[in-house]
């Protein structure tokens, strides 16, 4: 930021005083202003301007008719791309990575057998340049690209993939996402320690460039599964040498488009182009800087000031979303995630299905999504989000206060009489609190019941959620792969992500049947029935459909909206002539991932 090599912003259209100040941004050698005014004057101006929404100040137009851009639009020095990574990743060891920031870093550093298309996320050839499906969809044979190397010059071999996948499965690795590989023959048993011999697991490397995967039964979305970051290859020799610390800069060895050159916890990651990457010729960025920023307002400010070029979805305060719509920076789209309230069905009155229905039908999703959240989210009455190819959602739950009151009466609490005080569990966050306050008021108004809000910090919240010691709890679920199963499987009896105590043998049977069904249309039809059952009986009060809302500077090219909010950054580039090009950045936003907090 201080190297001051950035080019100057051509000042074309400046009207207000605020904009005049903005024009100073390009002289960015450390934000020094030639005429430093007295602090008092500055503060007065600030307060006066504070009264305008960001729509009013800090606007630069590139031409009289072109899109407006938010805040500074001075180019970064050279081919550097700077963005927010969100919270500090816990680990970016691909096999152990958990959260969205973890995965983002892992995907920058490593490349799997396939890589995602930046727009559709469909598998494109990556480290494997082709693959075949045989044995009625149960055997995948991947052929590795000749000449691929790790960043230390060693060849990437099929053995590396086999070792990496087995590492994920080994019980002592304690990988949280080992279940992604469970379709592989004996993978689950090996992961549980029931099978000790790794040769019995359906992973083979007959030679250095051939990797064979045997599945127990066909899984239509297997290629999506093995695109997940858990399945990225890792360098065996560094892990064996450095243990937990192999990921630190200096020791880490990668096979992706970038290497890690610098990391400071709670500050930033710096990545440099990996010259040994097979497709290095098409990598146009020389460097990337990912800042770890956990405060959303700070992220937003840094974006406005032009310190970061990309603010991924969920990383700026949702209150600002409606005001960003007029800017060319803003991109918005659907995202495979649902925000819902979970009901713990283990105790009265929540064990009564009519109570659950009453609560469900008394939530005005439209008011929450369109009024409170100003249309930054979609009202949603289903558990499974939209956009899964071939899947039709059953009718969603609608706001129907009359029916809700009937349900409550049927449950034995006409007009809310005798209904015990229940509470909504949320984890500490202003966004969650506002929604809870709105729902608290709706339930009181429509059903006449008293509701408290129980706000717990993260650790306690998870504990309360897991132990089912709650009435209603805020939750959200984000899709891991492009199939409704990623949502519906959570509510199978005893699943670790169920967390509601709900159990229905009919539902379990449907999910099981679907898994065995080979015909895609019929499989999805079964899943649709399962979702309908879950909505009518179950512990779920859907509220809204996640959307991605991201901010991207006009000179950044190659970031697109994707359904899972995954953004391959390999082909991103900085357009130094962006003002001469009309090409709008085809982008839509990213989503929450970490918004689960």
């Amino acid at each position, binding site marked *: 930021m201080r190297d001051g090599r950035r080019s100057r912003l051509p000042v074309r259209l400046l009207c207000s005083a605020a904009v005049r100040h903005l024009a100073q941004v390009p002289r960015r050698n450390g934000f020094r202003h030639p005429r430093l005014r007295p602090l008092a004057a*500055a503060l007065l101006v600030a307060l006066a301007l504070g009264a305008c929404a960001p729509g009013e100040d800090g606007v630069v137009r590139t031409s009289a008719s072109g899109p407006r851009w938010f805040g500074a639009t001075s180019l970064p020095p050279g081919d550097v791309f700077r963005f927010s990574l969100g919270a500090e990743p*816990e680990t970016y060891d691909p096999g152990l990575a958990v959260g969205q920031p973890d995965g983002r870093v892992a995907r920058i550093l490593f490349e799997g057998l396939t890589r995602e298309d930046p727009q559709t996320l469909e598998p494109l050839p990556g480290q494997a340049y082709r693959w075949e499906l045989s044995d009625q969809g149960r055997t995948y044979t991947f052929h590795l690209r000749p000449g691929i190397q790790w960043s230390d010059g060693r060849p990437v071999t099929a053995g590396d993939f086999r070792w990496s996948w087995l590492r994920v499965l080994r019980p002592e690795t304690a990988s*949280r996402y080992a279940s992604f590989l469970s379709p592989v023959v004996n993978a689950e048993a090996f992961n549980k320690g029931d099978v000790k011999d790794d040769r019995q697991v359906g992973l083979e490397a007959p030679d250095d460039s051939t990797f064979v995967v045997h599945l127990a039964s066909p899984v239509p979305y297997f290629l999506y599964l093995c695109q997940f970051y858990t399945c990225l290859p890792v360098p065996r020799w560094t892990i064996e040498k450095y243990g937990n610390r192999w*990921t630190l800069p200096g020791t880490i060895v990668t096979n992706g488009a970038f290497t890690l050159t610098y990391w400071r916890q709670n500050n930033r990651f710096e990545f440099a182009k990996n010259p040994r990457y097979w497709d290095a010729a098409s990598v146009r960025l020389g460097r990337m800087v990912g*800042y770890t920023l956990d405060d959303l307002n700070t992220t937003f*400010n840094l974006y406005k000031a032009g310190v970061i070029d990309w603010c991924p979805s969920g990383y700026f305060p949702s209150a600002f979303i409606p005001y960003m719509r007029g800017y060319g920076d803003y991109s918005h789209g659907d995202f495979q995630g649902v925000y819902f309230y979970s009901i713990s069905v283990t105790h009265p009155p929540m064990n009564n299905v009519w109570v659950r229905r009453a609560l469900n039908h008394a939530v005005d999703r439209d008011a929450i999504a369109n009024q409170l959240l100003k249309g930054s989210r979609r009202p949603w009455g289903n558990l499974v989000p939209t956009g899964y190819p071939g899947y039709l959602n059953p009718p969603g739950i609608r706001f129907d206060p009359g029916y809700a009151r009937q349900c409550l009466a049927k449950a034995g609490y006409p007009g809310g009489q005798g209904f015990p005080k229940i509470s909504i569990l949320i984890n500490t966050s202003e966004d969650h609190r506002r929604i809870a306050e709105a729902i608290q008021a709706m339930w009181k108004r429509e059903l006449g019941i008293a509701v408290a809000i129980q706000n717990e910090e*993260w650790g306690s919240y998870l504990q309360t959620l897991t132990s089912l010691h709650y009435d209603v709890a805020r939750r959200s679920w984000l899709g891991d792969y492009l199939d409704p199963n990623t949502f519906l499987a959570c509510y199978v009896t005893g*699943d670790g*992500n169920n967390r509601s105590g709900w159990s229905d043998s009919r539902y379990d049977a449907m999910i099981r049947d679907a898994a065995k069904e080979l015909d895609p249309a019929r499989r999805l039809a079964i899943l649709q029935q399962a979702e309908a059952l879950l909505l009518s009986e179950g512990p779920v009060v859907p509220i809204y459909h996640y959307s991605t809302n991201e901010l991207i500077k006009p000179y950044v090219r190659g970031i697109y909206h994707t359904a899972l909010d995954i953004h391959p950054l390999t082909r991103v580039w900085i357009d130094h002539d962006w003002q001469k090009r009309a090409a709008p950045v085809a982008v839509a936003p990213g989503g929450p991932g970490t918004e689960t907090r």
Partner: protein
Amino acid sequence: MSLLAFIARRVLLIIPTLWVIATLTFFLIHAAPGGPFQAERDIPAAAKEQLMRQYGLDQPLVRQYGRFLANAVRLDFGPSYKYPSRQVREIIFEALPVSAELGGWALLLAVLVGVPIGVIAAVKQNSRADYAAMGLALAGVSVPNFVLGPVLVLGLSLTLYLLPPALWQGPESRILPVLTLSTAYIAYIARLTRGGMLEVLRQDYIRTARAKGLGESVVVAKHALRLGILPVVSYIGPAAARIMMGSIVVESIFSVPGLGRYLVNAAFNRDYTLVLGEVLFYASFLMGLNLVIDIAYTRLDPRVELA
């Protein structure tokens, strides 16, 4: 009592205190609901067991306690649970210089501004100047820094583009966080100085000095100030320890990679090792600085003896 004996006695007292703190913290944090290996997305039971075994959390608590104490003596708290690639010690020693720098500048600014305000207020007690000076100082303590910070950012960074809005890169990035952090301390120090000066100005020797015909400014600067700022000196010890251990508010608003954020987040995340390391470090730092301040005290005020 000789200085050495004094120091030895104090250090001997610090050790059992640290032990009690370590014990208290250990059992409190382990008793808090939840544990380090929880996540929104369920962790398979097998993986969780494995993690517990790896970190020795499956052993009886007393056994864990013993091992923790033995390691703590060697200043080894093990790896953070939340960031397994890092040792607690590394995290602390990486973040401490940042917090210390931020805190150091803020404290320096507070002294440079607070002491003159306090002196002026004391010399002109109950005058308009007194009210104005103290009013200004008290305004600093009356505005929460999570309001002051964003207001400064909005004005100076996002409207005037004079200073970067956040991050700890380059000298100009220091200005806003230091300013935000120091206001409350300016108020405390001004108030302490005023109190101390008022007391001293009434003393006989000051009257004598005045009677000798020395100018008021000489009296104040040369004679009164030395004793008048004693309360400030004793305040600075604990204040320095606290301020240098980081401020969660300022660090998160300005995204400063300091210690303050770790402490709060570690407690929320039940990162046992990081919590223990930080708390013990904090306590030793605090007690150490107090010792230093007490020694400094004897140099400034000959009336005070080491006891």
